[in-house]
């Protein structure tokens, strides 16, 4: 657990001087030490000072420019009374002292990151944040290395090369730490990588195991006696569901969020798209891309897997978070995993086995009619199948940005029993072409222009009942919602918008309580913490980017030699926002 190191740090601070001694203990509730705050990936804060009655009085209390203009995905951490911020490339790590007036830096760490990584990262040079454990801040540099930094000194404790830029692998994902195992993955679904996760030793950074997401059972660490899939009994599915050797460069990246059930001792993560986008170059189910995998953290052993989108025709990565909850499903209390897939379906699975309990569309879906409960497979509309021989296939919903982007995680409040989900209302046409694999260059093979889904608005922030598979309320947004969500015990939920608003809503009704313009579009994830003064704070990054760096290139102004026209489907976003990179703190 993370509490021990943080407690030791607080004790140390307490011994340092009168200012620190006056500071109140943040306590377990007041910290945010891992990306989703807890292993269940709920992004729920038990803090309740900010509530439905007073949220309208929120005001900004501090800001900091990161000096970087890339998409500010991810979230800050608060450990003891220190705020940690990781920037997009070049991946600077800042440590702010919250016990001092004006929150001066304790230290900053400026790594030497290979600039060539910028050109290998598919979708802007973003970073999804750090993880705290045992006195260390651990995070990934974009160029394929994981670093551990001593929180007391800011000094590098270890640095391990995990990924290979030359093969198209980059590492914007946040690490996940369980039982002294640092679990990391790599992006590169658009570069023909052979996707994997690796387990490192927290104390030394040494590689303990590598588990591939496709390939022979031996490489997938799918061992007889441990491995059992609810729907699939055959062996070597990571080979037999591909044309000969295609799995070896079939994508299957790991760039989303992980979760962990200590009782079952299982780590859950989603696997991204198969490559190339032209599905005719990879006949078969392409397991285990577009899937959820459950592994043992100690040795990486695969315990179960479930594929959301067999033979993905639409770039429906399954990298979105797997939120663990206990819900009454069909009159029975079940230990479930809830996942909002790019393919537009919200899945409620039994997290011990991978059995589908509920699968209903949470946005407009045209590629499949439903998910068949007995086989676990989607019932696909064959007119929406794509491929180089099929020409331009029209009006596929959702678009390949997903019904929800995996980059922006949802939150769960056990208080309301609801999930809070950022969504996109986008559809696409899909023209696949034959792609050539050239190591280190994109392996894509499709042109996919977007348009608005039904209603004409491009996004919505919704509340979802995962036990019944239905939407409870929604706030329509003019643009896709690309920020993560914070749910709180004050019954207030927080999210940001691409046009640069940070908003608070009533978790029960969806009524808007407050909003503030943060200067640049929000693609990061808000957090809550208790300051040394005992007050509740909410923190979020502003800084539009990620896919929007590519899709709405006219929000950029950082390169006079790169001037882009607005995108057809989102013509006026640059009228309301531009690049930036700010940390914002709000309080009553």
């Amino acid at each position: 657990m993370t509490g021990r190191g943080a407690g030791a740090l607080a004790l140390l601070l307490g011994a340092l001087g009168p200012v620190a001694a006056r500071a109140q203990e943040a306590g377990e509730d007041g910290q945010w030490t891992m990306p989703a705050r807890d292993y269940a990936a709920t992004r729920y804060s038990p803090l309740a000072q900010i509530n439905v009655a007073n949220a309208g009085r929120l005001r900004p209390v501090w800001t900091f420019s990161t000096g970087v203009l890339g998409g500010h995905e991810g979230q800050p951490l608060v450990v003891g009374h220190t705020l940690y911020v990781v920037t997009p490339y070049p991946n600077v790590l800042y440590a702010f002292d919250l016990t001092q007036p004006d929150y001066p830096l304790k230290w900053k760490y400026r790594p030497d990151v290979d600039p060539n990584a910028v050109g290998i990262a598919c979708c802007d040079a973003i970073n999804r944040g750090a993880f705290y454990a045992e006195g260390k801040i651990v995070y990934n540099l974009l160029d394929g290395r994981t670093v551990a930094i001593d929180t007391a000194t800011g000094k590098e404790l270890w640095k391990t090369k995990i990924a290979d830029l030359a093969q198209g692998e980059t590492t914007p994902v946040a690490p996940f730490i369980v039982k002294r195992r640092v679990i990391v993955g790599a992006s590169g679904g658009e570069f023909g990588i052979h996707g994997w996760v690796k387990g490192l030793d927290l104390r030394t950074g040494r590689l303990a195991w590598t588990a591939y997401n496709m390939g022979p059972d031996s490489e997938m660490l799918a061992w007889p006696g441990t491995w059992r899939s609810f729907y699939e009994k055959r062996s070597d599915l990571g080979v037999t569901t591909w044309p000969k050797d295609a799995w070896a460069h079939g994508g299957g990246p790991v760039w989303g969020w992980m979760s962990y059930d200590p009782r079952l001792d299982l780590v859950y993560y989603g696997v991204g798209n198969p490559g190339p986008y032209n599905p005719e170059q990879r006949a078969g189910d392409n397991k285990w891309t577009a899937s959820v995998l459950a592994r043992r953290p100690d040795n990486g052993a695969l315990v179960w897997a479930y594929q959301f989108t067999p033979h993905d025709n639409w770039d429906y990565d399954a990298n979105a978070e797997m939120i663990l909850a206990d819900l009454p499903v069909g009159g029975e209390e079940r230990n479930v995993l809830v996942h909002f897939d790019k393919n537009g379906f919200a899945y409620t699975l039994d997290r011990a086995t991978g059995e589908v309990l509920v699968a209903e569309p949470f946005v407009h879906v045209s590629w499949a009619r439903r998910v068949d409960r007995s086989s676990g497979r989607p019932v696909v509309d064959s007119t929406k199948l794509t491929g180089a021989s099929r020409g331009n296939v029209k009006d596929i919903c959702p678009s390949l940005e997903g019904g929800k982007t995996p980059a922006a995680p949802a939150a769960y409040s056990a208080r309301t029993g609801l999930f809070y989900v950022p969504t996109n209302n986008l559809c696409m046409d899909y023209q696949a072409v034959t792609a050539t694999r050239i190591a280190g260059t994109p392996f894509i093979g499709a042109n996919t222009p977007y348009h608005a889904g039904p209603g004409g608005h491009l996004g919505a922030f919704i509340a979802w009942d995962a036990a019944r598979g239905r939407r409870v309320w929604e706030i329509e947004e003019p643009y896709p919602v690309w920020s993560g969500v914070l749910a709180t015990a004050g019954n207030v939920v927080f999210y940001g918008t691409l046009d640069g608003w940070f908003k608070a809503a009533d978790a029960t009704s969806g009524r808007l309580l407050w909003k503030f313009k943060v200067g640049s579009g929000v693609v990061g994830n808000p957090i809550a913490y208790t300051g040394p003064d005992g007050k509740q704070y909410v923190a979020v990054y502003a800084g539009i980017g990620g896919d929007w760096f590519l899709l709405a290139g006219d929000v950029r102004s950082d390169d006079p030699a790169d001037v882009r026209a607005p995108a057809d489907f989102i013509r006026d976003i640059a009228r309301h926002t531009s690049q930036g990179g700010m940390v914002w703190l709000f309080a009553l």
Partner: protein
Amino acid sequence: MRLLPVLLLAALAACMRGATPDQQAGLPAVRHDEHVSAGGAAPKAVRWQNPYQRDKRAADEGAKIFTAMNCDGCHGGAGAGWVGPSLADGRWRFGGADGELFQSIYYGRPHGMPAYGGLLLAPDAVWKLVTYIQSLEPPADVPTEAWQ
């Protein structure tokens, strides 16, 4: 302080002019000073001329190479910009002259532009790519984006 490396580079470049130590060492015929930027000046282009200048058929072949070599994966369909910069706005980080474009493709550039010369593409195919890129017409008004 900042002047020093520039002066050194200039001196180095002066030494190399006329001499051919590169060739003696078995290195390519392109001279070092022709693709190093010094003192803020754009790198000197190789004074090669595009043999296919404004040749429509070569541009069409270049467009096919642009897709086949995954150029569009970074620079976007029709070179409109994606994770890599736009090639259709008439603006150039490393110069838009024949030799400059050739060098960008053949030798690569910092921040992720791979070197396509040699194993992947012969000079002739690179010239066809150059011809295609030069055929992309920038819009009439690049600097201004206006709303009602």
